[in-house]
C-alpha cells in the first residue's frame, strides 16, 4: 500500500507554535502528531509514504529522514504555495502510479481506519472516503450519507443548520484518476479536495467508511492539552536512563518524560504532563496538565497549570501560569469556558515572580520581565516589563 500524507498545513490557530514548525510536527505525548500517523500507516501495512511538505519542511525531513526508523520508505514533495488540499495532493502525482491512501497529517487516527478504507477501495475500485461522528460537526466538512455512499459534503459553520453529525474524517483511497479530477477543480483560485469529491459525485460513486475509533484533531491550542492527555501512556512510569529525577521529586505515572530531562528536588510532575527532551524542571516547581517542548528550562518554584510551554523557553523562579477555565478570543472568535492556562511560544524568556493569566498567548522570542502580570496576546519578539 502507498500513502500520501498532507503535511504542509500551517495551522494558524496554533500560533505561535506553527511559526517554527508545521502543525503535524507539534508533539503530543512527546511524539509529533505526524509520527502517530506514520506509525498507524506502518501498522496498516503501508510500504511507501509520500509526505507533502511546505513551510518549515526541514522539521519534517530531519525527523523522518528516509523512513528507516519506521520501516517505511518515505519520500518528500514540496507544496510551494498553500493553494488547497487538492493542490497539495497534486504535488505527489509524480510519486504515485497506482491506487493510494491519502490522509491529513494533523489528525491522529488508528491503523484500523486505514485498513478499512483501503480494503473498501480494493473491493470496489471506487473512491473511498472516511466519515466519523463528532460533537461539533459545524467545525468540519459535514457529510450526508446515502446508504453506504457519500451524498454531499459541505462546509456548514452554523451549528443549527448542519444536516448530519457525520464529518469528513480526512482519510481517502483514490485511484490515480483523482489527479485529473483535481486539475479540473477550481475553488476560487485554489483546489480544495472536497470540491473535487463533490464534483466526482455527479457521475460516480464515492463510498463511505464509517469510523468510530480514535480521531483526534488539534485545532485550537487547548485541544493540544486534551489530546496530549488522552495519549499519555498511563501504565508506563519508566523513563530513559539519560533522565535524572531526584528522589524527593514526584513524577505521576500519567506523565510522559523525554530523554535527558532533569527533575530537581521537591518538584512535582502531576498527571497530564509531557516533558520534551532536555527539559530541566527546577526545585519545587509544580506542573499539572502541561505540555513542555524540548530544551525548556523551568526554574525553582514555578507553577505551570493547563498550559503549553514552547521549545527552549525559560520560565523564571516562582512564575505562575495559573490555569483553569476561561473565555478565549482567538482569530476574532470567542471560545467560552475552555480549560486553558496559556500558550507560550518558542524561545520565550519569563523572569521571576511573573504571573500569566488564564488564556494568555505569548509569541516566540518574547521577553517578559520579572514580576510582570501578562494576559491576552503578546506578539513575537515583544518585551513586557512590569509597571
Amino acid at each position, binding site marked *: 500500500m502507498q500513502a500520501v500524507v498532507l503535511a504542509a498545513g500551517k495551522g494558524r490557530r496554533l500560533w505561535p507554535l506553527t511559526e*517554527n514548525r508545521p502543525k503535524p510536527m507539534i508533539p503530543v505525548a512527546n511524539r509529533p502528531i505526524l509520527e502517530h500517523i506514520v506509525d498507524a500507516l506502518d501498522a496498516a501495512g503501508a510500504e511507501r509514504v509520500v*509526505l507533502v*511538505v511546505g513551510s518549515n*519542511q*526541514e522539521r*519534517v*525531513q*530531519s525527523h*523522518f*529522514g*528516509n523512513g*528507516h*526508523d519506521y520501516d517505511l520508505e*518515505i*519520500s*518528500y514533495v514540496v507544496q510551494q504555495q498553500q493553494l488547497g488540499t487538492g493542490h497539495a495532493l497534486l504535488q505527489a502525482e509524480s510519486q504515485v502510479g497506482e491506487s493510494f491512501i491519502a490522509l491529513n497529517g494533523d489528525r491522529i487516527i488508528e491503523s484500523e481506519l486505514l485498513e478499512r478504507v483501503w480494503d473498501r477501495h480494493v473491493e470496489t475500485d471506487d473512491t473511498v472516503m472516511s466519515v466519523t461522528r463528532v460533537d461539533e460537526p459545524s467545525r468540519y466538512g459535514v457529510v450526508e450519507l446515502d446508504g453506504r455512499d457519500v451524498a454531499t459534503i459541505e462546509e456548514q459553520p452554523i451549528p443549527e443548520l448542519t444536516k448530519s453529525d457525520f464529518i469528513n474524517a480526512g482519510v481517502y483511497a483514490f485511484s490515480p484518476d483523482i489527479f485529473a479530477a483535481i486539475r479540473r477543480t477550481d475553488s476560487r483560485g485554489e483546489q480544495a479536495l472536497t470540491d473535487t469529491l463533490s464534483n466526482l459525485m455527479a457521475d460516480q460513486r464515492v463510498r463511505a467508511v464509517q469510523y468510530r475509533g480514535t480521531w483526534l484533531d488539534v485545532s485550537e491550542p487547548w485541544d493540544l492539552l486534551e489530546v496530549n492527555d488522552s495519549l499519555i501512556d498511563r501504565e508506563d512510569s519508566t523513563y530513559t*536512563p*539519560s533522565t*535524572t529525577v*531526584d528522589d524527593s521529586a514526584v513524577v505521576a505515572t500519567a506523565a510522559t518524560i523525554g*530523554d*535527558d530531562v*532533569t527533575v*530537581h*528536588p521537591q518538584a512535582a510532575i502531576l498527571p497530564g504532563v509531557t516533558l520534551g*527532551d*532536555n527539559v*530541566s524542571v527546577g526545585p519545587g516547581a509544580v506542573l499539572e496538565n502541561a505540555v513542555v517542548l*524540548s*530544551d*525548556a*528550562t523551568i526554574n525553582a518554584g514555578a507553577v505551570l497549570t493547563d498550559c503549553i510551554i514552547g*521549545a*527552549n523557553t525559560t520560565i523564571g523562579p516562582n512564575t505562575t501560569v495559573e490555569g483553569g477555565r476561561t473565555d478565549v478570543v482567538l482569530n476574532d472568535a470567542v471560545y467560552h469556558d475552555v480549560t486553558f492556562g496559556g500558550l507560550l511560544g*518558542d*524561545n520565550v524568556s519569563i523572569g521571576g515572580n511573573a504571573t500569566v493569566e488564564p488564556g494568555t498567548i505569548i509569541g516566540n522570542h518574547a521577553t517578559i520581565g520579572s514580576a510582570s502580570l501578562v494576559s491576552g496576546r503578546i506578539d513575537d519578539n515583544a518585551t513586557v516589563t512590569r509597571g
Partner: protein
Amino acid sequence: MCGIAGYIGPGDAGSIVHQGLQNLEYRGYDSVGIALASDDVTVSKTEGEVNELTVPQTENPSTGIGHTRWSTHGEPTTKNAHPHTDCTGDVAVVHNGIIENYDDLKSELRESHIFESDTDTEVIPHLIETHLADDVSLLTAVQRTTQELEGSYAIAVTAAGHDGVVVVREDSPLLLGHSDDATYIGSDATAFIEHTDRVTYLESGDLAHLTDDDVTIYNDGEEVERDTETLDWDADAAGKGGYDHYMLKEIHEQPPALRQAISGRINELATSVDLDVDLPEAYLQSVEEIQIIACGTSYHAGLYAAELLEEHADVRVSVEIASEYTFNGGRDPWRTLVLAITQSGETADTLSALREAKRSGARTLALTNTLGSTVTREADDTVFIRAGPEIGVAATKTFVSQVATVTLLTVYLGQVRDSISTENASELLSSVRDLPGAVQQVLDQEQAIKETAQAYADSDSFFYIGRDAGHPVALESALKLKEISYDHAEGFPAGELKHGPLALVTPNTPVIALLTEQTRPEKTLNNVKEVKSRGAPVIGVSSDPATTSHVDTTFDIPQCGPMEPVVANVALQLFAYYIANEKDRSIDKPRNLAKSVTVE
C-alpha cells in the same frame, strides 16, 4: 581517501558493488572502476564520478570488487583508475593507501611485465601474477606479495579461476559485512549499510579469504578469530531525507546530534560529568600539559578546546596540526596527555602523530565519531562525540558535537584536578545543555541568513575575525566557505588584522565579526571600525543588539553563555552553504577534497 567496495554472494554483484561505490563516493570521486569475476575477470573503469561508470556485463559473476579514487599517484584518468590488472588480465586489484617501495618493485618487475598506469597500485597485480606462476593458491600468492610491500594499504584481489576474494589490511581501513547469504567488503560501513549492520573490523596485518560460504582470517600466517559487531547506524546515513544536500541535512541535524552528544553524560543535580574515561585520576591530576593533535575542522575544535581547558582545567595546552607534530621540547612524557581529535578515526596524519606520541611514552586519548575506527584501537582511551554518520565532505555537525564533548571533558578534567569552581562548572554545563535549543533557533532563521548570503555572494574575498573562542570559530567558518564555495576566505584573530591582512580589505571584501560572549566583543568592535573605515561591509554575529550597532548586517543569535561562539558557527555554516548554493557548487563533493583523509 579512496573507497573500496566488494561483494561475494548470490546477488547481482555488479549493481551491489556499484551502489556501494556510490555510498562511498564522499571518500573520493575522480575516477572509478569495477571488476567482476566468474571464469574470467571483466573490468570496467572511467574517470569521473561513480554514476558515469558502466557496470561490466558478465553472466552470473560470483564476486565483484570496486574502487572510487582520490588521486595521489598519477592523474585522475581512466588508465589510472582501479581495478588494476596483471599482464594476463586474470588478476584484478583495488587498493587504498600508498605502496612506499613501488618504485623499486616496479623497476624489478618491468623486465618481464608491462605496466599501463602511473599508479603505485599496479605493482600488486603483477607481483601476484609472478607468485601464481608457482602454481600456488590466490591466498598464498597474496600472502607472499604482501611480504614484499611496504607502506599502508587495504587491498582486495580477485582472480580468474580462483575462488572468492582475498583482502588485506595494513593500516588503511577495511571491514567486512555479513548478511545471511553474502559477504560485503568496504572501506567503511556506508559501503553496505543498506544490506547489513553486522560487521567485522579487520586489524592491521589481517589477511582474509572470502568465499561463497566462508570467511577465514589470518594474521602473521596463523588463523585468527575476529569479533562480529552490530552497528547502531541506520541506513538513513545513505539518504538525503528530502534535502538537496547532505550538508544541509547535517546542518539541520545539529540539535538532535548535540542532544545525543550530551545525553546521559551530564548530572545536573550533582553538577558532574560522566564520560566514562578510564585514565587514572592520579595521572590526570599530575598532567602538566595537554597536547591536542588534529587536522582541518578537528584542529579548530582543538583550538576551541584549548581555550576551555586552559581556563578551567588549569593546564597548559598546545594544539598541533597533526602532520607537523613531533614530541620534543624537553616535555615529560609521563606528565603529558595527548588528545587526538579525528571525526573518522582514520585520518592518517592524526594516526601518525598519535603513534609518535605513543612512541615517546605519552598517554593518549581519542575524541572521535566512529566506533571501531583505528584511533579507538590505538589510543589508550576514547571519548565518542556521537554525532551519527556525516557524509557531506564539509564537516558541520561533527564540529559542534566535538566542541560540546570537549566542553564536558573540560568540566570533567577541571573537577578531577580540582581547578573548576562549582559555579563555573554549572555555567558551562547549563550552557552545553542550552546548545540544542539555541542551535534550533538559528536554524529557524535560515531564510534571513540565506538572503544575506545571496546579497554577498559576489564578493572578492571574505575575512572572518574573532578573539578568544571567536578565533577558532572564525577559522572554522572561513574553512567552510572556502571548502564549498571555492571563494577566498580567511579567519584571523581580530587583533591581528591590522598587522598585515588589513592590506587586503576593500569595499568588496566583507568582514564577518564574531561579537558573541567569550569573544571580547568590545575589543573586536575596534577592529570592526578599522575595516569599516576602509569601506568593507561588516556582518556581525551577536546575541547583544548593543554590540551590533556598528555593523551593516547582523546575524542575531540567541544567548547561550560560554557556548555562544558555537551557535554563531551554525549561522555561518548556513551562510557558507547558501553562498555555495547560489554559485551552484558541488556542495557535498567539493573539487579536490575527500571526507576521510587516509593518506599522509
